């Protein structure tokens, strides 16, 4: 099982080491895609492990009243529209959009890191970024 999850934490849980507990107890691998504490606790994780452990971990988190949703949206870049200007880069919170090579100033896009926050869509002057429905 491998899944990208958006976790929202109530304030009361913010100072608890929930994720490390989950990882240890259920033997899962995880990758933090995005983390913030303000204005609310928000964590976007990619979790992988056996089905059994994964489901047990989800149960544990549900019991703690952590709000969970699968990250199901996909952001795509239209390579024909992108001019490699870089206008989107400061607006991307996860460095999914980045300069690949400072000599050519080519702009790379790493969908693996993308959390589908959609911040890049309105700031791209060429409408190169969009939400795949």
């Amino acid at each position, binding site marked *: 099982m491998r899944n990208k999850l958006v976790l929202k934490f109530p304030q009361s849980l913010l100072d608890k080491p929930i994720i490390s507990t989950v990882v240890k107890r259920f033997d899962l691998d995880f990758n933090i895609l995005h983390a913030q504490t303000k204005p609310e606790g928000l964590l976007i994780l990619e979790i992988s492990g056996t089905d059994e452990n994964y489901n047990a971990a989800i149960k544990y988190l549900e019991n703690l009243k952590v709000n969970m949703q699968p990250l199901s949206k996909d952001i795509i870049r239209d390579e024909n529209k992108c*001019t*490699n*200007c*870089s*206008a*989107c*880069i*400061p*607006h991307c919170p996860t460095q999914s959009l980045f*300069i690949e090579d*400072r000599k*050519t*100033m*080519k*702009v790379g896009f790493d969908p693996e890191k993308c959390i589908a926050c959609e911040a890049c869509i*309105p*700031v791209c*002057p*060429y*409408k190169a970024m969009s939400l795949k429905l």
Partner: protein
Amino acid sequence: MPKTYEEINKKIKNNEAVVLRADEFIELVDKKGLKEAAKEVDVVTTATFGPMCSSGLFINFGHSNPKIKSGGGEAYINEVPAYTGLAAVDLYIGATACQWNDPRNQIHPGKFAYGGAHVIEDLAKGKDVRLKVHAYGTDCYPRKELDTWINIKDLNEAILYNPRNCYQNYNAAVNLSKKTIYTYMGTLKPSGENITYSSAGQLSPLLKDPLYKTIGIGTRIWLAGAQGYISWYGTQHNPNAERNNKDIPTGGAGTLAVVGNLKEMDAEYLRGTSMQGYGATLTVGIGVPIPLLDEEVAKYAAIKDEDISAPIVDYGNDYPICKSSDLGHVTYAELKSGKIKFKGKEVQTSSLSSYNKALEIAEKLKQEIKQGKFLLSRPAQLFPSSDTDKTQKPLNYKEPKKEIFQ
């Protein structure tokens, strides 16, 4: 030994010209020294690819039967108003024109998804666009309404005419106000959180010929894939802007007016552009060859990002009220690194113009010259430079008499 335009063109025709992109020429000068490099190389290609609001298109759409006189009437292309104050079936459509029913900034920030610039891109792509004309009718032009599809291949003329392109240098924009702002320099986060710029720096045409020794009226240029020309200096051309000790302007200075045949252009280098909260604009790809006539021209052509700096301007407070921001300068080398130190913290930098595309254009122009397809033209007249009194003036505001409004 100085070279002449004729000598360089002869070499180009014989496929013998040595042509380098500006970035390659910089490397060569670093390796071999200016003298050697200037002797070896005939032409340096420069380019830029950025949003240029002062762009537009003249078209002649041909006479209908019965005839109509759009002049003095109203015309819309894909619902974007075109300027009709010309002869019977000539129109001008400007890049920043909005569709008549666009909500603009009433829902802030406006999207400006489709404007004059997008019409120009669609025409260049060979798409059909809808032309509507409302005329008052005359004895010789009786028709009052026209509603038809037009296509670039059917137009008599489609002439791109941009009164101001290719700014010699430009501001680096920051926003020191407390809210996000939406500008032609992109979306700027509050409290100086990001800085944007818009110049190809060491590849940008007028920065490689800062005193306009080879770039002038009549210079043949690469205009969105076609061979176009510099028709005049651009509006707001300001050769007397401040310059550093290498003669490079330390802010916006010279500009170009350019003209070319849209029918020969490649839509890849002519992009309808939507600046959130600001408006529509056209991103134009321009390449300008610099003939290395002598060592002085070569010295300027070898100017690097490290030597070119942009003033940091606060668009949140100062820019709208013509106040100069005393926030210092930053070089294009620093801007291109992705982050700079500003007011004691690290700030992300990003560009509106595309250096990557500018490189692509400089390379295309280089290949065309090497293959003998693009000859250089000597300017018919050079631009007013820093030895003239040409400047850029603010508006001389004169309060109208009140009774005009009563």
